[in-house]
């Protein structure tokens, strides 16, 4: 072994720019910020609900403002991307073995989409 192997430093701030797959990963991770922000919105909603009907009505009209709609749209896009990117890797994390065979990955992914559709439908029915 040599006395001075050369060590290549990895940039702590720009490493993800070096490969498209790292950028895709960072895109998936960045969506968390939107979901994190949305949890604050929900807490704020609970707070205004606790402050009485007027405060809650004010909160609802703020949601209907252009900025409120824009924020919700941005979160929706981020949440959809987040969900799709995670659904696509579920067969890796949760393989199901039946005898000597594994259940095909697309079946596991589609089951998640199915569950998503059912939950969305239930929420929609409850909300209407």
């Amino acid at each position, binding site marked *: *072994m*040599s*006395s*001075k*192997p*050369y*060590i*290549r430093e*990895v940039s*702590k701030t720009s*490493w*993800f720019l*070096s*490969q498209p*797959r*790292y950028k895709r*990963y960072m895109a998936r*991770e960045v969506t968390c910020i939107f979901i994190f922000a949305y949890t604050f919105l929900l807490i704020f909603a609970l707070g205004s609900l606790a402050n009485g009907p007027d405060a809650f009505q004010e909160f609802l009209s703020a949601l209907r403002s252009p900025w409120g709609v824009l924020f919700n749209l941005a979160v929706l896009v981020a949440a959809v991307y987040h969900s799709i990117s995670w659904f696509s*890797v579920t*067969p*890796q*994390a*949760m*393989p199901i*073995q039946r*005898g*000597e*065979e*594994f259940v095909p990955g697309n079946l596991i992914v589609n089951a998640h989409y199915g569950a998503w559709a059912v939950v969305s439908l239930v929420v929609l029915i409850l909300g209407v």
Partner: protein
Amino acid sequence: MSEERQIQLEVLRYNPETDLEPRFQTYSVPCVNEWVVLDALNYVKENLDPTLSYRWSCHMAVCGSCGYMINGEPKLGCKAFIHEYGDHIRVEPLAHFPIERDLVTVVEDFITKFASVKPYLIPKEDKPISAGEFKQTPAQLMKFKQYTLCINCMLCYAACPQYGLVPEFLGPAAISMAHRYNQDSRDGGRDQRQEVIAAHEGVWECSFVGACSEVCPKHVDPAGALQQVKVASTIDWYKEHLMPWSKK
């Protein structure tokens, strides 16, 4: 007749005795389209520059020696066909490992980590040879067969940004191999391996970039193995804290 093409092979060179830092050297190599990048390196070594250092052995994706960064992507030199590239190919040592000389990297860190997960069968109970073999059904074999295909080529470590940023990370191949033995019906060593792989520098450093599985030349899917280890370790934690009376 095979078509011949002149390739500009740009190779990272580093001589620890004379160089302060690595530099690129370009060789003009007459390549046959059926060649792989390793053939081009061999041509350079035999005809143009005998000082070029690189590892290789089997030339058929079994030994795992010839991993290089080829145009920035971790690849086996023996599986990277010339016809998949343009007229300019850049070859560098595997990323995230110190450079020993030219394309040769220092791999002690990987070997130490690999050995630390006890990558061998630890039988549940000792039994004499006269008692016969440990039997296994085809279904029990299928549970882990995919992970036995690892050839320790370290492409997954070169692809993993987490290993580049946090060198203490145990890494994809070592944890996958621990998972391989943990899944083996003949094995009883899971508790010993969990101490290493369920630690903070173990599987929890993984943020599921998934690059390891994308570059794996043997389709081992280390990223999948690591997520399964996370699920199993989480179940362990809940069992330990919510059901202290239950045996792990």
